[in-house]
């Protein structure tokens, strides 16, 4: 386990200002990091050992780390029709990830998700859409698939598919597999 040979580390370029045990500015530190050496780092630490770092590394990644929360607040004096915060990815994706068991929450008077192409809503478990007003689905083709539920076409429910082609009375099947099944039992032994 070793660092690069010392003569290949450019300590000549390093400058720093250490403002005490809680804050430091370190520039061109030739210590190798995951994304190359540091172009600069601003480091701060609280009495509770929560650190905050922002900096740029030679590989081009700009980092903002904080052990506690980060606030971005803008537009206190802007006009209400303007834009307060702009986050732009010029070429690639913009991703937001809440790790562990956190949620990604967006709240506004009006929420617009504008996709030039597809909009995918994927839920590992339940997908809940609730509206105080209308819910409008509009498309040139609108499909619904499932095995149970009141949006599933009668013929597509689990039970309907199982009994398709059987001799069981159609009304009974409709009653059983679409709108609830009356409590009765038929005992047959052979």
């Amino acid at each position: 386990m070793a660092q690069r040979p010392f003569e290949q580390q450019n300590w000549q370029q390093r400058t720093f200002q250490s403002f005490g045990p809680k804050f430091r500015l370190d520039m061109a530190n030739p210590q190798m990091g995951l994304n190359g050496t540091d172009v600069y780092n601003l480091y701060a630490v609280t009495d509770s050992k929560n650190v905050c770092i922002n900096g740029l590394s030679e590989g081009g990644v700009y980092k903002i780390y904080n052990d506690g929360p980060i606030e971005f607040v803008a537009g206190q004096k802007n006009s209400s029709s303007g834009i307060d915060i702009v986050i732009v990815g010029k070429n690639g994706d913009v991703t937001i990830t809440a790790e562990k068991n956190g949620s990604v929450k967006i709240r506004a008077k009006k929420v617009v998700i504008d996709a030039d192409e597809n909009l995918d809503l994927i839920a590992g478990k339940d997908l809940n859409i609730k509206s105080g007003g209308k819910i409008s689905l509009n498309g040139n083709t609108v499909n619904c698939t499932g095995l149970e539920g009141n949006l599933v076409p009668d013929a597509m429910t689990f039970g309907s598919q199982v009994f398709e082609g059987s001799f069981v009375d159609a009304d009974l099947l409709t009653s059983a597999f679409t709108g609830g099944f009356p409590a009765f039992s038929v005992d047959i032994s052979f």
Partner: protein
Amino acid sequence: MIDESLVKSNFVGRDGFRWWIGQIPPANAQGGQANGSGWGNRIKVRIMGYHPYNTVELPDEDLPWAQVMIPTTAGSGAANVATDVKLKGGDTVFGFFLDGDNAQIPVIMGCFGRTSQVPSATYKGAFQPFTGYTNKIKKPNGTLKPDQSNEQNAATQKSPRHVSPKQAKSVGKDEVSYFSAIGDTVQVATSKQGTTVNKIATEIGNFLKTIENIADDIKAASAWATSLVKQQIDVIAQKVTAIISGLVGGIVNSTFNLLIPILKQGLKLLYDLVYKLVLAATGNPVAAHLAGVAAQTAMVAPISILQKLIPSLVDSILNTISDFIKDILNSVVDNIQNFVQCAVNQVTGSVLNGVIGKITSAMEGPIAGVANILQFFGGFSIDNLIRSNPEVMAEIGSISGGGEVVQWVIGKGPKEDQGVSFGDIMKAANTAISIANAAGTAVSAVQSIGGAMDIFSSDSSSPGFKSALGSCYVGPPLKCGAPKIKIFGGSGSGAQAKPIFGSFVGSGANQTASIIGATILNAGSGYTFPPFIEIVDECNQGYGAVAYSTITDDGKLKSIYVVSEGENYPPDEPEEVYVTDIEIIDPGEGYSPGDIATDNDGNEYKLDVDNGRIIKVTPLNIKKVTNLPVLTVESETGSGAILKANLGDLTLQREVKQVIDCIT
């Protein structure tokens, strides 16, 4: 006094100029100046040659105030321009007296920097070196180390590194990581199907990394570490439960879809059977038909119960699987020291076995209700149905490739989304559950549900571990292979490259190296933008190598150039490499014909300049390269060019095989 004023001008410098060196006493001697109620830039100072060497004769509190001169760049405070004075107790300062030989009005002009040799003890007495830390300025408690030196060397005010805590520890005992999350993998949102395994692997990988960081505390059985592990396991179990909810939902849906044709066929067979029996008994086809219909109708209720199970089944499984996942994590936390692919497969396989087991047991009652239909399919069980139809778990497998980045390493960048072999996971899951079933009560509770996976055995971290399942060794890596270059994204595929090593350090098994270039083995095809380059060794030992790629107009990989060589990589054998050509990343501007470039290995390069921009770079002399070449353009007029060297083997080109005279 009158005599004195007669012979003195009382102008600085005219009555003699007296320099002095002194020491600043502790903060508690500075009165209001140290607690915010002072005025001016005044600091008490004990001056050598003027003040006694003990605090009895002259207590620190009685020392004279020195004015502090500040540099012109600091700002006096006028117009809000100011920089505070940063002198601390124990500092050795240099100055002069404003009042010459009277020596009553000292001025501090500067301060001598401390070296690491200066003792940092607490204050003992006059002129003895002592610490600048006080009860109000405590030593650093974060990742900075206490340091009271200001020297021109690498050790002074050493900063933490942007590496993971484990990597920092591996570089040296004085090395620390800036931030404990550096090196963690983040799985970002994607519409890509089949990322369950990667999500599970990411969570458990990060969990094990956390555990690794406190391994010493765990070994020492510290209550703090035990509590943290428990807390982490609870959190991860909850997260993995959430991750697998889509998988569970998918399996439940698929299982019911698989049941449809079976039950449908069973209903037909049931009708046929009843019809045949009644016809044989009565000879009446109408009665036989009605009996058959009645038999089918009798199945409406149990099928309805099955259908009603669909919405609640996923919830009931997820409500109970979390505890099982906790059991898995508790069982492997002491064993897995290296989260290799087989361990990923086995953890996932165990979870899968748990899910299958819970679906099977939850459906047991309702399935028994349709036994009359299933009687025609000997040995039918939900467990068999799922295991014999792997497509039921299609969601679990991962599809790699394409242009989308779905994983990111904090502090590093994009990570290749490795395709996971669904077959390997299923094989591990099926084999392990068979072994556990065969062993009966000889296996632990978690194994009886999750299967007899290697990862549950404490032997799995011992070198030479063998098992019937696949000998999944999860101990510390026995040998770190050389790093691999992973090329992904860019909408293309097929490109392959291997690293070129340089800046070797050490020898034998302990030898490490940096990455100074890459040899392209296959240019691939279909790239519409330069693919991402990830350089990683299987032990995660090396760090810091960063490379980018360029592509040709026809969508092939053209070059890989290194912008940061990194360090600490386990290398392959050194190769003899040379600069083969130069990639012009930025042609700059203002260059003149005749400008040349040189590199740190002494190579020279001819530049072709067009309209001030560098359009071609040709190596003039060819010397062996052992370090990352850094090209510098020597020009009085131009600036801004970025040139990166491509390295390779020039042996054949350097040998003159035959000279052909094309003129005569």
